[in-house]
């Protein structure tokens, strides 16, 4: 098992009131598996992704990646894990505005001190059909192009797991379809893919669909 989340609970405080953003959630993912999580805004999907990416600590339960309990790792090891093994694609405009597209895409590779990061970034941009935009700044790109660049950046270090938070929220149906096709291709290449989305339709090639409501995660049968 590549990713295993067992009875994960995350508490938040709203004023003096405590509530469960993630309530006893369990999830598992094997290499090459493609899963989506559906749910309304505020249902806890993004919090669950942040837990999986090691950005948030659990209040109870466990999240393991490749057999390692990520709750036991310090910030340095967690950051390295996120950089090298998890391609995390945050929601919204998640490119750094003061870097060109190619620099944005190459950045995780440069951070990991991997050789040929720029060459790999060029190849990924080419594969995603936006090679012509390599030297542009994010402000000049459309929503669909920004999402593609963000996905390219998520793939730069050949992660074992790609985690995407609402990757199609600001895209038209045609572009959304293309993005989901891209995730399918990534899963077919051997990486596990976990996508949080509002889209109610199960994407092509998707193996599992989870539903999340008020922090409770259910696997669609």
């Amino acid at each position: 098992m590549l990713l295993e989340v067992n009875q994960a609970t995350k508490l938040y405080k709203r004023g003096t009131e405590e509530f469960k953003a993630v309530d006893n959630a369990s999830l598992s993912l094997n290499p090459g598996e493609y899963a989506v999580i559906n749910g309304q805004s505020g249902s806890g999907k993004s919090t669950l992704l942040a837990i999986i990416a090691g950005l948030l600590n659990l209040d109870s339960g466990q999240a393991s990646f490749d057999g390692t309990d990520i709750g036991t790792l310090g910030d340095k090891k967690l950051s390295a894990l996120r950089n090298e093994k998890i391609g995390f694609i945050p929601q919204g405009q998640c490119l750094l505005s003061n870097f060109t597209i190619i620099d944005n895409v190459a950045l995780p590779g440069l951070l990991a001190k991997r050789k040929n990061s720029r060459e790999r970034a060029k190849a990924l941009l080419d594969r995603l059909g936006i090679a012509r935009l390599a030297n542009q700044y994010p402000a000049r790109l459309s929503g669909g192009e920004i999402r593609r660049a963000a996905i390219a950046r998520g793939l730069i270090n050949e992660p074992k797991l790609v985690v995407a938070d609402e990757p199609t929220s600001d895209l038209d149906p045609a572009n959304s379809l293309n993005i989901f096709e891209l995730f399918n291709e990534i899963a077919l290449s051997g990486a596990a893919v976990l996508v949080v989305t509002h889209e109610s339709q199960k994407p092509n090639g998707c193996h599992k669909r989870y539903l999340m409501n008020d922090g409770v995660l259910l696997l669609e049968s």
Partner: protein
Amino acid sequence: MKRFSLLSISVSNITCRAFRSGTLAGIVFILSFVLVCGSLFSACLRNGISSIDARLGADLLLVPSGYEQSAQGALLRGEPSSFYFEPKTVQLLLALPDVSEITPQLFIASFDSPHCSAQVQMIGYDPETDFLLSPWLNNEVPGGPGADEVIVGSKINGDVGDKLTFFARQYTVAGKLAETGMGFDTSAFVNMDMAQVALGEYIQLGGKDAPEGDGAASCIAINANPGTNLRDYSKNLRIAYSQHRVAVIETQTMLADLSSNLDTLLGIVSVLAVFLWILASTVLALIFAMSLNERRREFGIYRALGVTKSKLAAMMLTESALLSAPGAFLGLALSSVLYFMAEPLISVSMNLPYLRPNVQDIALILAGGFLVSLVTGPLAALFSAARIGKVSTAAIIKEGA
């Protein structure tokens, strides 16, 4: 970007936010400018007082009653003054009991006329009895100036061997003194015999209030016997010689008054500098906090890509240091240039002893001002840097947060 480094990312972040970066650097510039100017100003005044303390090695100065301020003006600021004891009073005073050292000095204010090369304070002293000027005048001219010779202060135009005219007589410059920060810088020193000659010429050329005949003096410097209570001694002198119009200046009291005035002035300067530092630090801290708020999404993205919290904090501190450095350097450069250009005006207008410290001390002051300004930015950014991990994680969960 060829490779990821704190520096390259920080430089990129700074250059793409030109207005904010300029504002931050500008605040550090103002801080650096004021700190360096204030420190130089304080050091010069303190050095001036130290110089007087070292050179005014007499317990008491006796001057004609009513001329106490003139005597202090002549000694401290080189204000040309002419005031005299009658020769018979001088003889009386030179025979005072309970003194270990006693020596007369004669002050003659030169004229602003063709008869004098410059308007200065001419000081005649007796090398045989002198204990005030000889210790350092002898460094320039062993044995003191001879006939028709003069030793000049640092601010008088004329080098060794040049001829200067005072009261229609030509004097050869036998030595030139180092800067003292006192009135001595604008004084010309001759031996007492030449001073008596000069006084006669001064009278012939229309000088006022000068007694006829040899033996006049403007000031009698005294070191009392060890163990003497100076307060009682000077009180007794005032009483005993009141009919001779003798005023007594206690040099330690004079120095204490000067120090007190100086402390008040420097206290104000220090309070202003600290106030400015606190103000600048607060403004910088607020700007960094606002910047953190504005950029939390950006920091969240870095976190998502695998940048550690400590590296993000270091990035913010590096940015603040990179912004502080040009501000601190420009402030240092401009304040040094302007200060030293305006120094003659400052030294004259202060009405206090003023002496520039040596090069090493100035270098230390400049380095200190630069360092304080340089670290102010990172210090102000410290609080925001410490919060960066928490804020950035929250931002990455909420879109547009």
